[in-house]
């Protein structure tokens, strides 16, 4: 069976410019990234700021054009389809901050209707579909007439999920979907995403910096560092036997709440009495570890 999402040699470089707008060089935001997600699976992409994880998400959504490489959704290259209904109907995205991704001047129903209108969903059927979507994300139908400011953070994120599901996509890109939420609210949103994934046979690309959350949600993970996947594999294997120094540093940095978790964290040598930065640690080891192929 074809994977739901396949990424081959994806690269994105941005030109750097002088103060006068002359191109002076380029920066590689994403460098030769390849991975695949099987249907119904959750693939976690972990990395810190600047690692390229959001650039990858934007390229999958067609918001940024790759410099080279290809993106296949359900076996079809998206290159010729960017901006088309066919592309939008297959993949949708849930953004990090629901406070910013919902238009404050639209009611919940109006926000959810935007993709329906864009995809030519019959107007007469819209109220029924909106009610159905609110049921799916476990919000009462009365929420349809409310504005974002009347909703809590968790409720707003449920609306954003309903909007992403409106056109029944097969693949959902989740960009830090719970990082703005309290931990108890996060648990309920993760429950909802898991239930929806099973009920609707969805495939998730889950982008997060929260390794503890990733450990419990993704079947496979890729660790991104400066645009490259430095390590990838089954989640338990990567977490229990991290091979790359950067993965070890990330795991060692997670604040944990039990002795068992603490025992799992790799020991990182201190440099000048400090936890080293990734740059320093990798320089210290003098390593040029390439990417580990899956």
């Amino acid at each position, binding site marked *: 069976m074809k994977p739901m999402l396949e990424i081959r040699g994806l690269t994105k470089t941005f030109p750097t410019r002088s103060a006068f707008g002359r191109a002076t060089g380029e920066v590689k935001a994403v460098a030769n990234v390849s991975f695949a997600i099987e249907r119904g699976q959750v693939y976690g992409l972990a990395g*810190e*700021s600047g690692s390229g994880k959001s650039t990858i998400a934007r390229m999958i959504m067609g918001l940024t054009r790759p410099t080279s490489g290809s993106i296949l959704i359900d076996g079809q290259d998206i290159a010729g389809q960017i901006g088309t209904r066919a592309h939008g109907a297959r993949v949708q995205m849930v953004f990090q901050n629901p406070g910013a991704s919902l238009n404050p001047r639209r009611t919940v129903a109006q926000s959810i209707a935007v993709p329906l209108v864009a995809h030519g969903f019959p107007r007469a059927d819209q109220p029924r579909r909106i009610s159905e979507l609110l049921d799916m994300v476990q919000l009462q139908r009365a929420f349809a007439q409310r504005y974002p400011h009347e909703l809590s*953070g968790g409720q707003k994120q449920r609306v954003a999920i309903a909007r992403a599901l409106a056109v029944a996509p097969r693949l959902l890109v989740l960009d830090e979907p719970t990082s703005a939420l*309290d*931990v*108890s609210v*996060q*648990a309920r949103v*993760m*429950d909802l*995403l*898991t*239930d929806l994934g*099973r009920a609707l046979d969805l495939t998730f690309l889950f982008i997060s*910096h*929260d*390794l*503890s*959350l990733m*450990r*419990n*949600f993704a079947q496979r993970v890729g660790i991104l560092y400066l645009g490259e996947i430095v390590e990838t594999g089954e*989640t*338990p294997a990567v*977490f229990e036997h991290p091979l790359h120094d950067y993965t070890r*540093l*990330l*795991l*060692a*940095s*997670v*604040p*944990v*709440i*039990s002795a*068992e*978790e603490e025992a*799992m*964290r790799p020991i990182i040598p201190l440099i*000048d*009495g*400090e*936890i080293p*930065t*990734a740059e320093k640690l990798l320089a210290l080891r003098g390593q040029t570890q390439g990417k580990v192929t899956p």
Partner: protein
Amino acid sequence: MSALLSVRDLSVEFTTYGQTAQVLQNVSLDVPAHAQIALVGESGSGKTVTMKAIMGLLRQPPARITGGQIFYDGRDLLTLADRDRVALRGTAMSMVFQDPMSSLNPVFTIADQMGTILKYADRRLGRVRNARDRMARVHEVLAQVRMREPERVSASYPIMLSGGMRQRVLIAMALLSEPALLIADEPGTALDVTTQAQILRLLKDLVTQRGLALLMITHNLGVVRETSSYVYVMNKGRVVEQAETATLFANPQSDYTKSLIAAVPRLTGGTRYGTVTP
């Protein structure tokens, strides 16, 4: 009164649009000298209002302190004259703020901003120090937060520094006039996980080496475990549980604490998300 900071039965209400909400109800907590104490709660629990009341930063109105006392070193801060209160702020007790991006003024260099803080702190303490000595002190404190090249950093504008370096500057600012108590509001929350780990370790080292008392305000139970020895859990404006940190995680008593701990995903795995079994 043995504790350095002692909050007794603090109650605060907010009045907005003619409606009054009870935001803190009989909150009591103690921070002994040299101790590392955490105050943990989710958004809306009242932890930030508690911090603001301690620092004297509550805007009144809309806030109103309806009861209780806040003792610092035996003196009730709530009955203190304004100028005595101000004299304590930044000198006896200092804040480390959460967001290093918005807590620094973009149009002044680090040296300007730290120098100004020191100048006013000196004035409040009746100390005399010339500009050159002030700069020497600024560089000394920047070195204490393990900034290499303090001279270069102090000549920089905030935009020239990384997030982790800005957070270090904020810590350095809090340390300028050698306070006995450091109140840290979610330090490192806005930073990457590896940078956050560095900042937490730095704070811990500074506090133990210099014998400071630390009140760590956070929503992150992992941060509580790594930085404190005693913890207060807040929910809906009340302290619902207080315990030695190790005891709280080993044997939580209140239902709220139990549910909070249960909601934290573990690095070891084992959380099953979803309400229906596949």
